[in-house]
C-alpha cells in the first residue's frame, strides 16, 4: 500500500468515526435533526451524481423516486397496520418501488438528450405530484402520516441518523466502485460524446438505464427514511421541485462527477437551509438564497469545490517538487488515472472548450450538387 493510499484510508476512517460520534457529542435534538437531514440529502445527492454526474444527463426528476419511496412505505405501513421498529423493514420496498418506476421513466426519458431530457424529467415529476394529489390511495392533499415511534425524545433522532449515515456512506462507496469500473468509464464516455461511445461498441441505453435505476433505488430509500423521520407526507413535500434543485446544487457545489463532491455539498447546504428556515421562519429566504448560491457556484466555481481544490493541491505539490527536484519521482504518466480523488491530474480547464469544439454527428454530404456531374 502506498503512503498516499494509507493517508486516504486513514482520512476516510477518521471522517466516518467523526460522523459516528456526532450525535454523541452534540446531543441537542435540534442539532442531531440537522445531522439526519444532512445525511439523507448526502445519500440523495450522491445518488443523483451516480446517474447525472457521471453520465452528464441532468435529471430534475429524482423527486419522483424520493416521493414514491415515501409514499410506498407510508401506504404499506398504513394498509398493513405496521408500527414500531418493524416499519424500517419496509425500506427495501421504497427502493423496489423506485426501481420499478425508474425503468419505464428511463426508457422514455433517456431517448432524448440535454435540455429535452431535463424537460422530460420535470414533466414526469409533475405527473407524479398530480397523481399523489388525485389517487384514492395516497390520501389526497392531506397526505399520509407515519406510524408513531414510541422512542425517548432525547435520543429519538439517533437511529435515524445512523441509518442515514449508513445510506450516505454506502452511496459514496458505491459511487467510488462505479467510477473506477468499466460501467463507470462507459458512463463518463457517454457524458463526453455519446455517439462516439456508440461507435466504439458501448450500448448507451442499458448503461444509462442501469445508472438511472441505481440512482432511483438509493433515492427511494432516502425518501422512505425521510418520511419516517418527518412523520408525514403531502404531495408538495414528497414531490418537491426544491428537492431536485437542492440535490443538483449540492452536487454542483461539491463537484459534479466526483465521488466526495455531492456529500460535501449536502453537508454544507442542507444544515444552512434548515438553519435559515428555522431562524427566520420565513421559508422563502432559504429558497432565495439557494437560488443565489446556484448562480454563484455556476459563475465562480463551475466545476465545484473538490476539482478546484485538488487542482490547487496539485499545483502546490508541483511547486514544492520544483524546489526539491529529488522528490518528484513516482508520478509517472499513468498516475492520476485511477479512481482516487478525481481531477488529481493537472486538469487545466481544457475540458470546457474542447467540449464545445466537438461537432454534431456529421450530417454532411448534402449541398454541393448541381451541374458538375461529368
Amino acid at each position, binding site marked *: 500500500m502506498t503512503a498516499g493510499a494509507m493517508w486516504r484510508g486513514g482520512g476516510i476512517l477518521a471522517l466516518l468515526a467523526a460522523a459516528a460520534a456526532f450525535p454523541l457529542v452534540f446531543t441537542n435534538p435540534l442539532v442531531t435533526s440537522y445531522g439526519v437531514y444532512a445525511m439523507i440529502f448526502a445519500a440523495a445527492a450522491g445518488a443523483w451524481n451516480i446517474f447525472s454526474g457521471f453520465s452528464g444527463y441532468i435529471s430534475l426528476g429524482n423527486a419522483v423516486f424520493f416521493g414514491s419511496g415515501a409514499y410506498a412505505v407510508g401506504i404499506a405501513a398504513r394498509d398493513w397496520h405496521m408500527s414500531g421498529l418493524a416499519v424500517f423493514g419496509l425500506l427495501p420496498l421504497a427502493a423496489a418501488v423506485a426501481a420499478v418506476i425508474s425503468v419505464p421513466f428511463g426508457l422514455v426519458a433517456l431517448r432524448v438528450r440535454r435540455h429535452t431530457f431535463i424537460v422530460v424529467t420535470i414533466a414526469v415529476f409533475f405527473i407524479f405530484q398530480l397523481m399523489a394529489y388525485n389517487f384514492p390511495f395516497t390520501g389526497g392533499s392531506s397526505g399520509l402520516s407515519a406510524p408513531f415511534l414510541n422512542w425517548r425524545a432525547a435520543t429519538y433522532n439517533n437511529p435515524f441518523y445512523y441509518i442515514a449515515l449508513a445510506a450516505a456512506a454506502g452511496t459514496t462507496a458505491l459511487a467510488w466502485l462505479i467510477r473506477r469500473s468499466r460501467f463507470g468509464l462507459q458512463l463518463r464516455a457517454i457524458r463526453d460524446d455519446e455517439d462516439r*461511445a456508440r*461507435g466504439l461498441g458501448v450500448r448507451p441505453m442499458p448503461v444509462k438505464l442501469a445508472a438511472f435505476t441505481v440512482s432511483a433505488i438509493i433515492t427511494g430509500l432516502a425518501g422512505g427514511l425521510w418520511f419516517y423521520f418527518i412523520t408525514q407526507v403531502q404531495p408538495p413535500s414528497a414531490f418537491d421541485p426544491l428537492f431536485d434543485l437542492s440535490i443538483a446544487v449540492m452536487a454542483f457545489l461539491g463537484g459534479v462527477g466526483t465521488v466526495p463532491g455531492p456529500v460535501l455539498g449536502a453537508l454544507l447546504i442542507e444544515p444552512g437551509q434548515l438553519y435559515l428556515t428555522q431562524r427566520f421562519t420565513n421559508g422563502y429566504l432559504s429558497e432565495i438564497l439557494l437560488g443565489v448560491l446556484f448562480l454563484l457556484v455556476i459563475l465562480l466555481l463551475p466545476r465545484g469545490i473538490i476539482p478546484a481544490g485538488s487542482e490547487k493541491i496539485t499545483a502546490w505539490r508541483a511547486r514544492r517538487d520544483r524546489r526539491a527536484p529529488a522528490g518528484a519521482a513516482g508520478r509517472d504518466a*499513468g498516475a492520476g488515472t485511477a479512481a482516487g480523488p478525481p481531477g488529481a491530474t493537472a486538469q*487545466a480547464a481544457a475540458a470546457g472548450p474542447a467540449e464545445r469544439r466537438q461537432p454534431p454527428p456529421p450530417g454532411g454530404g448534402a449541398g454541393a450538387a448541381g451541374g458538375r456531374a461529368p
Partner: protein
Amino acid sequence: MTALLRADGIAKAFGGVQALSGCTLEVSRGSVAGLIGPNGSGKTTLFNVITGYERADAGEVTLGGEVITNAPPDKIFARGIGRTFQLTRIFARLTVLENMLVPARRQAAGRWRNPLAGAGLRAGSPERRRAMELLDFTGIAGHAGALAGSLSYGQRKLLELACVLMADPAVILLDEPAGGVNPPLAERIAERIRELNAGGTTFLIVEHNMEFVMGLCSRVTVMDSGAVITAGPPGIIRNDPRVLGAYLGGGLEDGESGDDATAP
C-alpha cells in the same frame, strides 16, 4: 481478391437533398482503399451509412458477406468495423489512457460479468498493457495520464486511431486522417496505416490530400454529387477526365490537394 466490405446501391436523402444515390463501393480484404471527391459529394454520408450513424433509404451494406445495413453503430463496431471522424472526436474529460479503455472488449463471453469489474486501469492488466502498446505505436504514450482534451489536434487524430485499434477491427474507416495535420505527422500516420495493413487490417480512407491517397491506396473510388463516378487504381484515376471534371476542372497534380479543405 474478395470484397470484405461492400456497399451496394446506397441511397440517402436529407429532406429534399439527395445526398447519396445508388452508391456502390467495394473494399477488398487486406487492401487500403481510397474514397475521394469534392466537398459535399457524399463521402462522409456514405461512411455514416456504413457505420450505422445514418440509415440508408435503399441499398445494402455487407461485411464479409453478412448484411449489416442499418445496424446500430455499437453492433457494427462489434462486427469489426472501426471508424474515425473528420473532426476528431475523443472523450475530452477522460484521460488518454481511459479513452483507450472505452472500446476494450473482454473475451469472457458467456461467463457472468461483474457489473463493477474494473475498467482495466490497474497496472499490469491486459487491457492497460494493450492500450500502452497502441499509444506507443501511435507515439502518444507520453500523454497517457493527461486529459484527452488537452491534446493537440494532431495528437487527437492519433488517439482516435489508437482507440479504434483497441478492438482489432477487420476494417477501419478513416475520415480525413491527414486533414489539418502537418506533413511529417501525415507521413507518420501513413506509415502506421501501412504497418497495420501489412498486419492484415483493411482500410477505407476519405482524404483530400491526393499525395496521401495516391501513395497509400491500391484502389480509389471517386464520388461526385452523391454518386460514384468511377473506381480504379490510382494511376488510372489520376488521369480520368471525369475525375478532373468533378474537381471543377482543377488538375490533380502530385501534392496538390483537390480543394481548399485541407488548408490547416
